[in-house]
């Protein structure tokens, strides 16, 4: 372990962080939108829609992400060459983003479906009794409860996605793992480079874990102990005397 080399590795790998973050954030966002659609199709009760969503989830969860990346990056060009999609699918960045988004959509859809199924029936009945229906019922009652239920699972998925962006390095994108691999190939100092690159991922994942815990805490006031009334009143009582 040579401090000078650790510092050099840190400075060499640091420029890859924005690309890692960009791929993770964009694919999570796109995947989330797709996942809401897929979860909706699964729960719609309409057989063809359910079958399509089930197949999507089955295929994307049952095969390695790297195969999906290759299928899109190497396999699709034959079909899209000359169409509007070609300028995008020619770029590894778009291919990686597409593969990551489609993949995380499948996992997220199942997490969301679990959240929707956990909404108590009584809550929906009560909302209907109050005259809510359709989108208002979803917005006010179903979504908030479902999202809160799904947060721990979704936090895991966010961490998996940060790790999954490392596969983009295999199709030439120079994010954290890509730069680390290049540095190892140049210097053959695998252990030091692993420590530095690993530290970047651990830091990102630590921040995500904390943020998810904070959101979960913020969204579950009903599960916390009631505030200590005396502690709240103490300043006021002090003034009385």
């Amino acid at each position, binding site marked *: 372990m040579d401090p000078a080399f650790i510092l050099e590795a840190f400075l060499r790998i640091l420029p890859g962080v924005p690309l890692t973050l960009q791929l993770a954030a964009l694919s999570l966002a796109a995947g989330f939108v797709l996942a809401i659609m897929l979860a909706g199709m699964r729960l719609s009760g309409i057989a063809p829609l359910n079958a399509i969503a089930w197949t999507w989830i089955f295929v994307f969860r049952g095969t390695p992400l790297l195969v999906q990346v290759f299928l899109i990056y190497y396999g699709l060009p034959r079909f899209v060459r000359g169409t509007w999609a070609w300028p995008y699918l020619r770029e590894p960045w778009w291919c990686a983003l597409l593969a990551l988004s489609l993949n995380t959509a499948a996992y997220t859809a199942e997490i969301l479906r679990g959240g929707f199924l956990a909404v108590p029936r009584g809550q929906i009945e009560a909302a209907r009794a109050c005259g809510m229906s359709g989108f208002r019922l979803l917005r006010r009652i179903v979504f908030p409860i479902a999202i809160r239920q799904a947060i721990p699972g979704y936090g895991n998925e966010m961490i998996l996605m940060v790790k999954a962006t490392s596969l983009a390095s295999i199709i030439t994108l120079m994010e954290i793992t890509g730069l680390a691999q290049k540095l190892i190939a140049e210097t053959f100092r*695998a252990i030091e480079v692993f420590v530095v690159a690993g530290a970047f991922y651990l830091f990102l994942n630590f921040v995500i874990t904390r943020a998810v815990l904070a959101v979960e805490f913020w969204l579950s006031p009903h599960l916390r102990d009631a505030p200590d009334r005396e502690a709240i009143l103490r300043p006021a009582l002090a003034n009385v005397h």
Partner: protein
Amino acid sequence: MVPFLELMGFGPRGWGAAMLAAAAMTLAVSVAGFLLGGVVGSLIAWAKIAGKRLVRVLADGYTTVLRGVPDLLVIYLFFFGGSAMVTAINRDWFGGQGFVPVPAFLVGMLAVGIVNGAYQAEVFRGGYLAVPKGEIEAARAFAMTRAKMFRRIVAPQVARFALPGLGNCWQLCLKESALISVTGLLELLRQAQIGAGSTRQPFEFYLAACVLYLAITTVSGWGFAFAERRTRRGVARA
């Protein structure tokens, strides 16, 4: 351009046999990694449950790091770091010359096993915590030795509680084995890359790889579901 079924068939232009052999290699490296992960995972779970403070901290560090770092980085660590280490040992202790590569299968098994061990440790720990305390006390009251208590009371129940989680770990193993293709091990994805390169029909080869992976995950999923049903015989459902 060769039609898909002929390309993946067993005729003179068919790659079917090569793809099936590569799928067998995928299975072999996954099973080896999964078993190694079982050994590593039970040791780490033991350290977490019964270890002294320092041992517990180390075990926690192990699971945190290996679950928080991309698998690909771990594979690079073993692939490049392992060869560098073996080369250095060969040079310093045995006076050998030149670069000594580590066999790709060994790198794959180690990388998959070390990472999967971190996941399996958490599964085993969860399974152990689910064993009712009263049963352990009852076993003590019968004056069972620790080994006998482990064999008769703890292990069978941990196996039952851990089985669904282990099924997930096995699926992770299978998917991680695809990353071993970067080391050149001739497993399913590497074979698909080779076929795609030499026939210029990448879509067919990656599609076939997808189908084979799906077949493996589906059949092993059935296997785990069957095992779960068997271990739950005689257990009342809540």
